[in-house]
């Protein structure tokens, strides 16, 4: 092979490798984006089935309940229009509190409650996780436009 041909072959190989990798990345990207919805959007059925997503809002005061095993908990998250029930198995983060903002990631179960596999409360003094604020903001815009 002449040097020119070699170089061409090399460039083609690199391009092939890069496109293959890019394809892989984009595919993984598409299937792993976690979208964010407000409790109202969940109630209105705008959420994807069989796909994880995040919800945010405030933990309704007095809604935190613990099963006998002490590990399974349930609570309601509201955007001030609708509230949905969230069940979670595991230890809640240190800064989880009723009446405060929370973000949960998980799936919708068949009975309409949300099964969280991750509950996030920010580890700093911020008043509210951004997604929780977003849920309340959207809810307000809806009310205003009604």
């Amino acid at each position, binding site marked *: 092979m002449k040097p020119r041909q070699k170089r061409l072959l*090399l460039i083609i190989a690199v391009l092939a*490798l890069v496109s293959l*990798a890019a394809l892989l*990345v984009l595919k993984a*990207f598409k299937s792993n984006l976690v979208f964010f919805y407000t409790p109202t959007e969940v109630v209105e059925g705008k959420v994807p089935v069989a796909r994880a997503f995040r919800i945010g809002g405030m933990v309704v005061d007095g809604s935190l309940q613990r099963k006998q095993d002490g590990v399974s908990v349930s609570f309601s998250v509201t955007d001030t229009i609708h509230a949905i029930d969230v069940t979670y198995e595991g*230890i809640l983060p*240190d*800064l989880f509190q009723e009446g405060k903002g929370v973000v949960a990631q998980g799936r919708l179960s068949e009975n309409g409650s949300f099964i969280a596999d991750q509950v996030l409360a920010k580890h700093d*003094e911020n008043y509210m996780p951004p997604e929780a604020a977003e849920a309340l903001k959207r809810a307000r815009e809806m009310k205003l436009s009604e």
Partner: protein
Amino acid sequence: MIPEIGHFSIILALWVSVAQTLICFGGAVRSSPRLIAFPRYSSYVIFLLTLAGFCCLATSFLVDDFSVLNVASNSNSQLPWPYKLAASWGSHEGSLLLWVLMLSGWMSAVSLFSKQMPDEMRSLILGVMSAIAIGFYLFMLLTSNPFDRLLPPAVDGRDLNPLLQDPGMVIHPPMLYMGYVGFSVVFAFAIGALISGKLDSTWARWSRPWTTAAWCFLTVGIALGSWWAYYELGWGGWWFWDPVENASFMPWLCGTALIHSLSVTEKRGSFKIWTVLLSIITFSLSLLGTFLVRSGVLTSVHAFATDPERGVFILGFLIVVIGASLLLFAWRAPKVGLGGNFNFISRESALLANNVLLVVAAASVLLGTLYPLFLDAMGLGKISVGPPYFDAIFFPLMAPAMFLMGIGPVLRWKNAKTLELATKLKWAFAISLVSAIIVPILMGGWSVFVSIGLLLGFWIVVSGLVNLLEQIRRIRMGSERTIFQVINSLPRSYYGMLVAHFGVAVFIFGVTLVKGYEEERDVKLAVGGSVELSGYRFSLASLDDLIGPNYNGIKGTVFVHGADGKLVSTLYPEKRFYHVQSMPMTEAAIDTGFFRDLYVSLGEALEDGSWVVRVYLKPFVDWIWGGAFLMALGGLLAISDKKYRSKRRSVPNQATVSS
């Protein structure tokens, strides 16, 4: 008085940096030897001034001078003194001071260790570095002065964020910053080479030890951060793909690629344009990391209070530095000639593939980190990109890179024979394959994931050993030397490469085994209760009140008994409540072992007085950080190679051996 002295020395350091930058570039234009000699000494002056400033800040923290805003916001009289010291770089302002301290330190190091370098080149490099320093000094003095006074002084401070009150956190930021800032040296070398047009293998040889040094620090810094997250956040995870973690991981990936492409540029003169671009990208990603963390654009565990003014400044600085250097690149790169030719099967192409994979990995991390921001900026809604995305791309991208890691060092430069390669490595592959099948069965549960992970790990180790034996055999042929003499004669950079690659293997073993065999249980435990986890019995013996210097809390005593009934360990998990910031903190208790960690953390107290307790069994988890430290050790070995210390060009037998 002390804060004012500190403030004043930082202002002086700024002016010396301005002078140095002007003189360096002026000297380069007028090629005046007297001007060119100036930065050798002014670099030390900048460093000493910055060090003085840093000591003043540290002193203010140590003596509880709450008339300094930074001290009042980030320290407290009750804080133990090592954390007071650490608090001096725990805040935004303090971390910037640390950043410039390190930058001036690296600058002095360049000045000290570059005696063989032509004066013009050194002057250019130091000029670029002091130009970067100007940006950071200005940023600090204009938007985030660590010496700002608070009048009237506070009675007591608001305390350091409890998350940061930890030994790991004391050394994690300095290490990470040494890495970030260290890449500025490599960047300055690249810019110097582009300006002077001397983009050759000499340039690559100068850049290599500096790149490796910065990379070692970054590796240790990231490993410490990960280790801290493991025991401090109480969730037993060691990597969360948090935006701030990603910000440090991207320069690491590019830096790793750079180390490899530099070796090609030095040894073969190829990849010159690519290497110089990669040098720029690596440092740009370090700057981007600083921007992401310091501007509050992304919220994460580490997020500091948002401050658009600061963000605007860093972004402006980012645009000037990166924009100018990429423009310079576009202008000069076409004039750089192409390097030596090479065949499709050669070490060059293996290293090229390694570079492509690493850079694509870095790009995909960048995509995952910035895409949510993009969508938000376009008003298209909020999304998050979680660990599953990164997991899904990293495995397929890194697996081929790991495979090449076994082949690359065995391949010859320029042109290798496929058949020869197969003869050399077939046994290595066979041994790895058999081990990868047998070991999971011995561990008590076979899965494809574990098997592939172990295959890659064994492959790296065995092919590395094959490579070592091959080198020894080749040198011994036709020479009288004993095996020990031969082992001694191999260059340190070669051993460095082997050790770093073994480090990767150890890391893979750790990741694979902990993912494959870890066990976790969240249970409700009252005093006297116990829980069983794969042969270990964890019993909660007591819960006691705990009074710390700046917190109080609950301390549990957990006995761990093995399957034979013997006491394995006693663990003391804590739940702390820090007074000043009124923040609860979970302190996990870990029994660290070579083969497994036992991990207990207290969750929440329940109404009946019992606690939700989380227990983990994490096999081989410490290998993850052990592997990272081995990688850094390998880098250290490579730097200590005598070819970087002597004036001689490469020694003949080293040219053939990889490093």
